[in-house]
């Protein structure tokens, strides 16, 4: 039996990757600055442990990195691709959307693309419009991709392992503001892709969120509890596949659904969940997300795009009212 250890979200990912690379010689990692541990320390020690052939420092060539990873995968490797921030992954959109996501299907099952593309999301320290986006809905829209959004160190350990084992291209979205968050990590805990976690139980309404939105939702639930509103908070953990069963069961019981995400609200993935629940259960639904503006640099502007527990609580009250 393994004893849980206290790790940061970044350390948990490094541990998962290290263990997976030890167990499977086909796994390689490639991206910019990996030899120095990655921008956020999420690869710390790996190049020293596995060598420059398996932890590959690359030129700043996002299309080249993702394209090369597709080729590596088709030729029998399992690449972990670092995109630095999701905003830069847009330079590799053909490679992920037209190539990685399509190959297995359009080649009639010949060849698979078991790659994990790590694309850190979210607002982080005044990083402004091109380093702060949450674009998970873009990728959730895309057949052929799996989309994973860990919110805790334990999940970043367990979900990264699950992503590596899935055998299909996974868009793996770590939130930049979570890198330093610490928590217990038990290496014996496995998490299946597509299984949500109930982070707080409640009977008044269901709040569904993921990534950084989970802690904002839990803070909102605290505010609501003081007023006698018992919010159930579900962490979706992966957006594709998303755990319909868990969400439906909870919303059927509470009779109300609120979806919370840091991404822009318009055409966000919250719309998909809210629509699905409304269609199937006919319960009232609501959404909280950022206004449709670029993330501003100055603090008051950045604040406009951040999830506010107070605003989440307000939306919950409206649903319960």
């Amino acid at each position, binding site marked *: 039996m393994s004893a849980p250890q206290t790790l940061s979200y970044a350390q948990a990912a490094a541990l998962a990757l290290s263990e997976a690379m030890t167990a499977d010689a086909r796994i390689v990692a490639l991206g910019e600055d990996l030899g120095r541990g990655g921008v956020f320390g999420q690869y710390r020690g790996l190049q020293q442990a596995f060598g420059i052939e398996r932890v590959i420092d690359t030129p700043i060539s996002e299309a*080249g990195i993702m394209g090369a990873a597709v080729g590596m995968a088709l030729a029998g490797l399992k690449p972990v691709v670092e995109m630095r921030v999701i905003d830069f992954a847009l330079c590799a959109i053909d490679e992920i959307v037209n190539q990685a996501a399509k190959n297995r299907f*359009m*080649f009639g099952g010949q060849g698979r693309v078991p790659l994990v593309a790590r694309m850190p999301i979210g607002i982080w320290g005044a990083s402004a419009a091109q380093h702060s986006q949450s674009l998970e809905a873009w990728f959730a829209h895309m057949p052929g991709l799996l989309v994973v959004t860990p919110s805790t160190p334990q999940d970043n350990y367990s979900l990264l392992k699950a992503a590596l*084992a899935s055998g299909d291209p996974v868009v793996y979205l770590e939130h930049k503001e979570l890198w330093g968050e610490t928590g217990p990590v038990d290496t014996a805990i496995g998490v299946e892709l597509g299984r949500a976690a109930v982070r707080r139980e409640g009977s008044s309404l269901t709040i569904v969120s993921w990534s950084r939105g989970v802690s904002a939702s839990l803070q909102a639930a605290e505010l609501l509890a003081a007023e006698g509103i018992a919010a159930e908070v579900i962490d979706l953990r992966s957006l594709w596949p998303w755990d319909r069963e868990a969400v439906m069961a909870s919303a059927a019981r509470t009779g109300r659904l609120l979806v919370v995400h840091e991404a822009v609200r318009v055409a966000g993935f919250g719309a998909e969940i809210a629509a699905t629940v409304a269609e199937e259960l006919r319960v009232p639904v609501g959404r909280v997300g950022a206004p449709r503006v670029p993330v501003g640099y100055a603090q008051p502007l950045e604040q406009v795009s951040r999830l506010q527990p107070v605003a989440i609580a307000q939306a919950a009250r409206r649903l319960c009212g």
Partner: protein
Amino acid sequence: MNAPPTERLLALFRTMMRIRAFEDAAEAASQGGVQAFGQSASAQPARVRGPLHLSTGQEAVAAAVCMHLRRDDLLTSTHRGHGHTLAKGADLTAMMCELYGRATGTNKGKGGSMHIADFGVGMLGANGVVAAGIPIAAGAAHALKIQGSNAIMACFFGDGAVNRGPFLEGLNWARVYQLPVLFVCEDNRISATTPTGPMTAGAGTAERARSLDIAAETVDGNDVVSVDAAAGRLVEQVRAGGGPRLLHAITYRLKGHVSIDPGAYRDPAEVARALESEPLRLARERLLADGVDGAVIEGIEREARAEVAAAQAVAEASPWPTEDEAFRDVTTVAEGVWQ
């Protein structure tokens, strides 16, 4: 340079002839389906539907380069990739079935002409996006190096691709990691319907490769003997661990951008001149000069056309994919862990 033995030239001619016959038949089967390029839609739907990009007139490049590849060598191709795929050894009948969209196709009818792949012969896929195969090829070559294989990668692309970013990123990548890849620019001198020359700054493809310290050769891509010799030299260097090389083969696209495009935007005199030096004609003349009996050459052509006709008959009789195939090979996470 010594001329290759007649037997080798006959083998190259046979490959080129099979490509020509395959594409001629596919072209005929693709007519009449849609209203485009001045053609009106007919009541009789085309048997080969969708964009069909023909490499007619470019066969020498595919045949001669692939002559130097082993079965375990890898290949990436383009939207104009029937020739490369056939020359690498893919099954002609399965390819025809794929064009017909049948379940018996190389891709089970799920890809069509632009996405033909045959992993069994190392053919990692044609590509509907210009230049997209270049970084993929670099990555596959990277995998070969990591795996300690002595197989190599051949990466075909067209002249239009050299103006896309992945050309720079993929070539730089291959040189930085000294990867076993032969880049082949099959230069048919036209990007869809626009001549490539005026759209391309500087001294062109080979010079762009040399600027990245990748040795490059330029050859007459219509002369199968020249391509054979140059490809032989470059493949040997790549296989010896010398890192990437680039072959720039200048040829001419005899047909339009797609099969239903008559290419009316081109000067008829230019096309007439091109027909004088098209690769099958040149190879035929050379064989005759080598003393090969004309009847032998005609026999090869007859055989190729018969093989293609038989493949079409198989395709016509083959079943369509069933609807459940639309849901297969998307992702399997819900079905369990894949190893």
